[in-house]
């Protein structure tokens, strides 16, 4: 019976060329060195980011309650492409007066974008961008048709009532980060949007402004289905 051996390369690493056969890296105690798929995909250049709001210039979110046909962000995943959303992040800069705060990300097939908003050019998380995203993304002032097939809520959060609060040395107001974040790796349920599909992202407060970013892994559907 063959024992499996690995080569101890804890501090003297060999890094060989693409396509070369190499010994599996081990630590001196025999522990295998592992890289999760998301890391491998980032190194390959297959993870992307779309964001809205730049540096100190936030965008304006939907005023009032969310509306199915007018998300803050829309993303079209074309036939032949599949994405796995990895992270959604919202940073509120201003809420407005007291009203419900709603955040909802949905996905599915059968939806469409009637009117695109401000185009977003996705960035590759690998800065030399060896691969381009084929998804179309836009934000703000857009209209869509919600998915009709296999509709899912990827993430829903919010507050019953949220408001801009005045902080001072003397007035007792609960002081916290107005950041809302979802991660597929935390959820353990990885949504796979097989194109043609849509992802819609809704953010609303009474008169909200802020920033959001979305990160995803993108592959040809032929690698999955």
């Amino acid at each position, binding site marked *: 019976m*063959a024992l*499996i*051996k*690995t*080569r101890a390369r804890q501090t003297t*690493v*060999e*890094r*060989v*060329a*693409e*396509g070369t*056969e*190499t*010994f*599996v*890296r081990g630590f001196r105690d025999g522990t*295998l*060195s592992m*890289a*999760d798929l998301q*890391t*491998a995909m980032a*190194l*390959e250049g297959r993870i992307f980011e779309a964001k809205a709001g730049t540096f100190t210039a936030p965008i304006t979110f939907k005023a009032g309650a*969310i509306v*199915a046909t007018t998300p803050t962000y829309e993303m079209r995943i074309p036939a032949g492409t599949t994405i796995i959303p990895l992270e959604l992040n919202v940073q509120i800069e201003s809420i407005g007066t*007291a009203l419900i705060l709603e955040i*909802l990300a949905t996905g*599915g*097939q059968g939806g469409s974008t009637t009117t695109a908003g401000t185009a977003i050019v996705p960035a590759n998380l690998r800065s030399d961008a060896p691969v381009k995203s084929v998804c179309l993304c836009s934000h703000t002032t857009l209209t869509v048709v919600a998915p009709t*097939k*296999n509709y*899912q*809520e990827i993430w*829903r959060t919010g*507050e*019953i*009532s*949220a408001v*801009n*609060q005045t902080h001072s040395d003397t*007035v*007792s*107001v*609960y002081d*916290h980060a107005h950041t809302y974040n979802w991660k597929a790796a*935390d*959820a*353990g*349920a*990885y949504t*796979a*949007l097989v194109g043609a*599909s849509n992802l819609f992202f809704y953010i609303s407060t009474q008169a909200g402004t802020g920033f959001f970013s979305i990160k995803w892994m993108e592959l*040809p559907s*032929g*690698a*999955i*289905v």
Partner: protein
Amino acid sequence: MALIKAKVRQSSADRVAEGTDTYVRALRDGSLTFADFLMAMSLEGRCFQALAGTFTAPVTFTAGAIVATTPSYAMTIPSGTTIIPLEMSVQIESIGTALIMEILATAGQGGSVSTAGTAITPSNIRSDSPMGTACVCTHTAITAVAPTTNYQEIWRTGEISALDQTHSATVSVYDHAHTYTWRAKASGAYPVLVGPSILTFDISTQAGTGFFQIKWAELPSTAVV
């Protein structure tokens, strides 16, 4: 004795057809790549979601305290099917006046649903939905018999006293997301519900409304037991 070797595919991955033999993928330093089992299940199409409350139309939760026989959600896992709950999330839209708030997910064998509520059609979180679920899911106006064998509490949370609070710019009110989430991955304790089993989910406040989502991985029991 054989040393393990792998093919370096850090930035030029081979993606072969189903059933084809392929080299184990490695980064240039020999680190093996690995994918989370739950991502593999999602890509295979074996993860599902049931949700109640759609977009801006919440459901009404149980008023008062939770009652074992009237859960907000019931899920029947038939003989021959096994599920692993992955995530449960509740978004409260309205609480009502001050009273205990209770959230409890239970499971086991020997329970049953006497009166089904509103049927839920689960969605596959892979948007082209290569397979359906065998589980039957309903919400609201349910009567159920609690499990009698191997009863477990998957998740219990709540507040001693919760109520809708008036927010203003200056009045000190704890301002937070009214989202309650359980994740098997974070827990590290994965419930394995071998059918026939039942999963019930109780949500109650004084006069609560809101939304909930449940995600799970599903397999034929023969793949598990």
